[in-house]
């Protein structure tokens, strides 16, 4: 590791992102349960550390491509909550006027360029974003987020190879949560660690504990610095676990008894909170204040969403091509 242990401000910043993700996720699930919103929802709860640590190394101008389980990646990147919630609610005030929905959020202002519902497709497109930056001599980097299952799709291999041949400023961040839908990692994947696959594409590959903010930050710091310096792509495999199954309503019958409970007992959000307080990097008061402020922001986003109109039906004919079509 060339990077130094991050300072307190960075670490508190990572916590701020983590708790923001956790609090939003809790509210999303509560609102879904209440029936006030209806949508396919892929909870990222348990995976808060990864995008929070990665985003601590990114600027607004840096790009991300994420996936259906990507609300944590967007929140960590700084997407405004009103716009995000309204999009999840299918409202005209959403990031995409309600036309994308939870699986297809775009918010260029915070670098959230593409969200895909197709497993593996974030990677080839992140390459293109990085290619544009490279050709234009810009310093920005692109991050492709994806799951462990996605590393078995051809697009992963094509994208890593191309990124390496062209030395693209891209960071491939695999959030290995041990499952692809209901299939266990070992039953679908031929390598013990996905990071091993980096060797085939002559790029650095590192496996980190994706629930450890410092380790994940250090891995991301190195990969982002490398990309910014024009040294090419990296693959980070961050091991983690999803607390609420594949999709909202998942019965978890495919999991081993006790597996989920064991992971939840090591919930990275309170663990990191306690650690920050114990080491004196933050006070209980400071964090409680921060969390309360986020709670208010979420209250407002929910209100905003529920009071927002649905899109006009004329939207059916807009944004298909540049010029409106009505065939």
């Amino acid at each position, binding site marked *: 590791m060339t990077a130094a242990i991050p300072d307190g401000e960075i670490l508190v910043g990572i916590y701020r992102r983590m708790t923001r993700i956790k609090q939003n996720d809790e509210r999303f699930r509560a609102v879904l349960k209440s029936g006030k919103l209806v949508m396919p929802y892929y909870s990222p709860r348990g995976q808060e550390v990864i995008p929070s640590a990665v985003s601590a190394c990114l600027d607004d101008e840096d790009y991300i*491509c994420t996936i259906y389980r990507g609300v944590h990646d967007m929140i960590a990147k700084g997407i405004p909550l009103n716009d995000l919630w309204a999009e999840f609610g299918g409202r005209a005030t*959403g990031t995409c006027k*309600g036309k*994308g929905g939870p699986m297809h959020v775009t918010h260029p202002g915070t670098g959230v360029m593409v969200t895909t519902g197709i497993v593996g497709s974030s990677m080839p497109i992140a390459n293109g974003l990085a290619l544009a930056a490279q*050709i234009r001599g810009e310093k920005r980097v692109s991050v492709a987020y994806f799951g462990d299952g996605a590393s078995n799709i051809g697009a992963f291999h094509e*994208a890593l190879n191309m990124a390496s*041949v062209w030395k693209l400023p891209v960071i491939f961040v695999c959030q290995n949560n041990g499952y692809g839908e209901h299939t266990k990692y070992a039953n679908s994947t031929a390598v013990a660690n996905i990071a091993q696959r980096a060797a085939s594409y002559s790029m650095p590959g590192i496996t980190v504990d994706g629930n450890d903010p410092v380790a994940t930050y250090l891995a991301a710091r190195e990969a982002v610095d490398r990309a910014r310096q024009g040294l090419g792509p990296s693959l980070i495999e961050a091991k983690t676990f999803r607390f609420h199954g594949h999709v909202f309503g998942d019965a978890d019958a495919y999991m081993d008894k006790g597996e989920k409970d064991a992971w939840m007992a090591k919930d990275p959000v309170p663990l990191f909170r306690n650690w920050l307080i114990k080491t004196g990097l933050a006070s209980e008061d400071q964090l409680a204040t921060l969390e309360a402020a986020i709670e208010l922001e979420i209250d407002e986003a929910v209100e905003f969403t529920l009071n927002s109109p649905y899109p006009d039906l004329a939207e059916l004919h807009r944004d298909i091509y540049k010029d409106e079509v009505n065939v």
Partner: protein
Amino acid sequence: MNLPAKINTIQAINQALDDAMAADVNVIVLGEDVGDREEGGIVGVTRGLSSKYGDARVRSTPISEQAIIGAAIGAAIVGMRPVAEIMLMNFTTVAMDMIVNHAAKLRFMSGGQTHVPMVIRTMTGAGFGTGGQHADYLEAWFAHTAGIKVVAPSSPADAYGLMLSAIEDDDPVLFIENMPTYWTPGPAPERGVKIPLGKASILREGTDVTLISYSRRVLDCCAVAEKLAAEGISAEVIDLRTISPLDTETFLASVAKTGRAVIVHEAVKPFGVGAEIASLIYESLYGQLKGPVQRVGSNYAPVPFSKPLEDAHVPSLEQIEVAVRATFK
């Protein structure tokens, strides 16, 4: 620099790419073997471009169709104008996710915040004995997908003017080049003159029957029209140029005049572009037609290898003629 009086489609597209790259630094070219180190493409469409504009803007890629289209999409979203080559149309099948789920839909799904101004160049067509996986016309699949435009020129001059428009267009465009007619010379285009997408051209005026086609089979329609003229049948020939968006107005006006229509394409007939056009004609002109609308397409089978089979597979001049006569029944 002036062009010679006659050029072929390879030269025409090469010139269009050259002119577009000279005019806009955001235009980049990527695809298998497109760079001059790799001879500028397997038939030379991109020859000379990497030497002139550099390896950063003209990039030979790995054989990775998803990665090629993905890279083009990502670059396009942030304002570049990539021209991605998928060597043969059948190879679009391994990049369908990128084309259909992403390129075509990102403008809509993002609520208009992003769009994908890219061109996918691809060649195809039966006649060279390339068999079942290198000669299909798959345009109906793409025309069936909202969000992508489909262009299929029939002459060098059209290829030039349509390519300039395709590159300048703010939506993704699939640009279909017919391989067997690549080397057929035709009148040179005027440099810098664009042909608008979505506008058909009336190649021959007539009063008795309308022949509607695109890409290579336009040439066959012209040949049949010429032959029938000797018998006193006056055929109008419409080259669609663009399949999506479809210039419905032009062919409906023509069929309203002639009362008869034949649609001819090299793609197999069932579920093809011809079916869509025939439907549009019936929806608008039912009652005004003087005979049933006819369709001519390839045999409903994979493209065969053996020469006699390949020849019999694609639409023949005789089939087109028979179809025309059927509209008089």
